[in-house]
C-alpha cells in the first residue's frame, strides 16, 4: 500500500508539472493560431513594441531541410526583421500536406531538397511567381524557376566516390561507363526509393532518352556490388571496407565524414576520392535545395523578405556550410573542403525537368528491379 502511495504521489506530482506546462503550451498555441487578431486587439491599448511586432508579423515555414545552422538562420532573420518564424519540419510528406490543405494552408514558404519536388509543387499549382530584384541578382538563372516560382538556396553534386587504393581516377569517365562489364559487382548505390537517385535517372531520361535511361538503370543493377542498403554515407564506408570499388553519392556526405568528430569516419573519408563524372560530355548531375512562396500564402511580403535574406552572401555561406553544400550565390565563399575538390562542369538542363520525369523514373526503377 505504501509503495502504491509513493507511485501515486510521483504521478500526481508529474501531472501538476505537466498541467502547468500544458497551460503555458496552450497559451503559446493560442498565440500562434490567433497571432494576427490578438495583436490587432492589443495595439489599441498597449505599447509601441507590440505595434512593431504586429507590423513585422509572422512567417510560417514548411521545411524538409533541417540542419542546426538552418535554425540559427531563422533566429537571425527574426532578430533582424522582428518577423517570427514558425516551423513545421518533416520530409516528403509535407508536400502532400500542402497539397491536401490547398487554399486552407497556413504555410507561407516551403523549403525542400530537390528541384524535382519544387517543380512538382509548381505543376500542382501550389506556388506563385515572385518579382524580386534581390533574388534575380543573387541566384543564377539556371538555379531558379523560369517564372520565378522557386529559387535554389544550396547546390549539391551527385558524384562518383572511388577507393584511392583500388581505382585509378583515369579509369573513371561517365555515369554511363559504370554499366560496362569492368565494373561488374563493384558499384555501390543506395535504394531507388531515394529522391537523389530518382532525380539522377530523371536527368538521364531528359539527356539520353527513356530507352537509354532504362538501359543505364538495368546496367547499374547488373553491376551492383550488393543489394542497395543504407544511405549515401553507408555506400562511402562500403567502398573503404572493400565491398565495392565505386559509389554514387552526394558530395556533402564525404564532406561531412571529413569533418566528423569521429576519427574513424575521418579516416574513411581520407581513403576515398571524389570524381566529377561526364566532364567531357553532359556534365555532373547537380541538384538544389530551394524555397518557394506558397500560392495561398497569407504573409507574402514576409515570405519574400525571408527568401531574400537566405540568398544574401552572409546567410548563403552559413546555409551551405552547415551541410557542406555549394552556395548558389556566386559571391559567397565556399568551404575549404569544397575548394579542395575543385571546379567542375555541371549538367546543363532546366531543373524543372526533374519533376516532370520523376514518376517515370520511379517506374523504371521498379521495372528493372532496382530495390
Amino acid at each position, binding site marked *: 500500500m505504501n*509503495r*502504491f502511495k509513493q*507511485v*501515486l504521489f510521483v*504521478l500526481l506530482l*508529474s*501531472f501538476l508539472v*505537466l498541467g502547468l*506546462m*500544458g497551460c503555458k*503550451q496552450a497559451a503559446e*498555441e493560442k498565440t*500562434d*493560431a*490567433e497571432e494576427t*487578431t490578438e495583436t490587432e486587439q492589443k495595439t489599441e491599448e498597449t505599447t509601441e513594441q507590440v505595434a512593431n511586432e504586429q507590423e513585422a508579423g509572422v512567417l510560417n515555414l514548411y521545411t524538409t531541410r*533541417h*540542419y542546426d545552422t538552418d535554425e540559427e538562420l531563422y533566429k537571425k532573420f527574426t532578430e533582424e526583421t522582428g518577423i517570427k518564424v514558425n*516551423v*513545421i*519540419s*518533416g*520530409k*516528403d*510528406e509535407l*508536400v*502532400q*500536406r500542402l*497539397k*491536401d*490543405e490547398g487554399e*486552407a494552408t*497556413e504555410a507561407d514558404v516551403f523549403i525542400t531538397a530537390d528541384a524535382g519536388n519544387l517543380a*512538382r509543387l509548381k505543376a500542382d499549382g501550389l506556388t506563385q511567381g515572385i518579382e524580386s530584384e534581390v533574388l534575380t541578382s543573387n541566384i543564377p538563372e539556371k538555379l531558379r524557376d523560369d517564372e520565378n516560382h522557386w529559387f535554389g538556396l544550396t547546390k549539391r553534386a551527385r558524384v562518383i566516390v572511388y577507393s584511392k587504393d583500388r581505382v585509378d581516377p583515369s579509369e573513371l569517365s561517365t555515369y554511363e561507363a559504370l554499366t560496362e562489364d569492368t565494373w561488374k559487382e563493384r558499384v555501390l548505390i543506395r535504394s531507388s*526509393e531515394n529522391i537523389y537517385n*530518382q532525380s539522377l535517372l530523371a536527368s538521364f531520361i531528359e539527356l539520353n532518352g527513356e530507352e537509354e535511361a532504362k538501359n543505364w538503370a538495368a546496367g547499374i543493377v547488373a553491376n551492383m556490388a550488393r*543489394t*542497395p*542498403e*543504407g544511405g549515401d*554515407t*553507408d555506400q562511402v*564506408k*562500403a567502398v*573503404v*571496407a572493400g*565491398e565495392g570499388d565505386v559509389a554514387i553519392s552526394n558530395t556533402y*556526405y564525404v564532406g*561531412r565524414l571529413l569533418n566528423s*568528430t*569521429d576519427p*574513424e*569516419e575521418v*579516416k*574513411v573519408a581520407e581513403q576515398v576520392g571524389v570524381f566529377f563524372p561526364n566532364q567531357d560530355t553532359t556534365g555532373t548531375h547537380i541538384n538544389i535545395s530551394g524555397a518557394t512562396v506558397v500560392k495561398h500564402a497569407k504573409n507574402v511580403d514576409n515570405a519574400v523578405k525571408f527568401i531574400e535574406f537566405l540568398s544574401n552572401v552572409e546567410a548563403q555561406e552559413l546555409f551551405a556550410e552547415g551541410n557542406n553544400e555549394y552556395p548558389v550565390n556566386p559571391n559567397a565563399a565556399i568551404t575549404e573542403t569544397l575548394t579542395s575538390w575543385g571546379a567542375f562542369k555541371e549538367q546543363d538542363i532546366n531543373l524543372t525537368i526533374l519533376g516532370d520525369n520523376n*514518376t517515370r523514373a*520511379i*517506374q523504371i526503377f*521498379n521495372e528493372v528491379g532496382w*530495390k
Partner: protein
Amino acid sequence: MRIIQLVKTQLNMWAVLSFIFILIILLPNILIAVNFFGEPNENWFHIKEFLLLDIFYNTTILLVFTGVTTTIIGTSLAWMITVYSFPLRNFFKWGLILPLAIPPFIGAYTYQGMVNYTGFIQTTLRNTFDIQVNQKYFSMMSMEGTIFIFTMFLFPYVYVISKSFLENQSSSIIENARLLGANSLETFFRVVLPISRTAIVGSVVIVMLEVINDYGVVKYFGIQTFITSIFQTWFAMGDKESAFKLAGTLMVVVIAILMLEKIIRGRKQYSYSTSKVSPIRQKKLKGVKAWGVFSYCLVIFSLGFIIPFVQLFFWMIMTYERILSKEFFTLIKNSFFAASTAALLIVIIGLIIANYSRIHKGVLPRILSRITILGYSVPGAVIAIGVITIFLMLDRSLSTLFTMLSFDITFVLRTSIVMLISAYIIRFLAVGYNSIEAGFEKVGSTFTEASRTLGSSTLGTFFKVDIPMIRGAIIGGFILVFVDILKELPLTMLLQPFNFQTLATRAFRYANDEMISEAASASLLIILISGICIYFFHKVLDRGERN
C-alpha cells in the same frame, strides 16, 4: 411504448459519450474503406505488377519470424522468472521489460552504427588486432537484421503478458505436474505452453501489429513493406488513391491476423473456479543451472538494453556539446505534454466506454468495445491520412460557421495540437482500454451492484467505488499509453503543428540525415523517461499481484 422505455434505459450519458468517441475512431477508417473501392489508376496497376508480391513476401517473412522468435524468448524468460530463483532474478524480473523503452528505429540505427565499418566492433578489430572482416557478416541491413531488431525490442510484450498470466494462473497446475514427475522441460512444453496459449497469442498479435506499423526500421534497412510502399506511393509518387488502396489491402491483412488469433485461441479457456490463487513457490537453482539461466537472462538483457544504451551514451558524450541546447527542454516539454494529455484523455474515454459496456450487457456495447482496438490495428500513417482529411473538413465548416456568425477570428484546428492529440487517441485507445477492461473484469460487478442497491447513483458509484477499485489498471494503462506515445513516430511526423517537435521526431531527424551520433541525446532522453515509467508500471503490476 416499450421501445421508448428501452431507449430511455439504454440512452444515458454513458451511452451517448461512448457512441461519440466510437464515431470519432471510426471516421478515418470509414474514409479509407470508402476510398479502397475507388477506381484504380495507372499507378495501381504498376504497383500490383511490380511491387505487391515483394511487399507481401517481405511482410509475411517479418511477421512469421518475429512472431516465432519473440514467442520463444518471451515465454522462456517468463517461465524462468516465474518458477526459478537464481542470481539477480528480482532485477531481471522488471529489467527484462526495459527493452520496450527503446524505440525499434533507434535500436536499428544504434546496432547498424555499432557493427558498420567505422563502428566500435570493426574499428577495435582493425586497430587493435589488425583483423579485416568480411562486411557481409557485419551489416544489420538485411531481413535477418530486421528480425533481430524487432525481436530484441518487442519481445517484452510477450514476456510481460505471459509472465503475469503464469504468475496468476498456473501455480497449482505446475506444482501438480511436478508432483506427477514431469521435469522442467516437459512441464514447460506439455503444460505451460498449452495453458498459456491465449495469453501468448494475444501478445504475439501485439508484436505483429507493431511490426506491421513500423516505418523507421524498414525504411532505414531498405526492406520494402506495406508501410514503406504506402509512404512511397503517397508522398513520392503523390498518388493518394493508390496509397488508400494499399492501406485498404493492409487492413485486410490485419483483419486476417486478428481472425487467425481468434481461431488459434479457440474457445478453450483455462481459468479457475476458485479465486484463491496461491503464488508459485520458486525452485532455487544451484550451480551450473543457476548460472545458465542467469547468463541467458543477461545475454537477452544486454542485447535488448545495455549494449544499445552504452553505445548511445558514448555517442552522446561525443556530441552533446553541440547538440544539447535549451531547445532540448522544449523537446522534453512537448513530448511530455503531448503524451500525458493524450494518455489522460484515453484513460477517461476508456473508463467511460468500459463502464458503459460493463453495465449494459448486450451486442451493441460488445461491438463498441471491439471497435476501440481498430485504431491500434490500423497503421499510424493510414490514420494520419484519415485524420488530416477530416480536420480539413472541420476547419472548412468552422470557418464557414464563423463567417456566417460574422465572428472575426481565424481558428485553425489543423495547425493546433488538437489534431495530433486526436490522432494519438484514435491510435492508442486500445492500449489504455484493454488495461481498464481487464481491471473491471477482475473486480467483477458485485461491488458496483451493492453500491447501487444502497442507493448511490451510477455516477456516484463510478467515482466512489469503481475507480478506486481499479486504480492499478488505470495507472498501468496510463503508463503504457504514455510510453507508446513518447516513442511514436509516423503520426507525430505527419500531423505536427507549427514549432512542435518531440524527442522522437528529433532523434529520427538526425538519424535519417545520417547523423546517428547526433541523434543519441534525444534517444537517450526517450529511453530514460520510458525506463522510469516502465519501472513504475512494474511496481503497479507487482502490487496487483500481491493483492
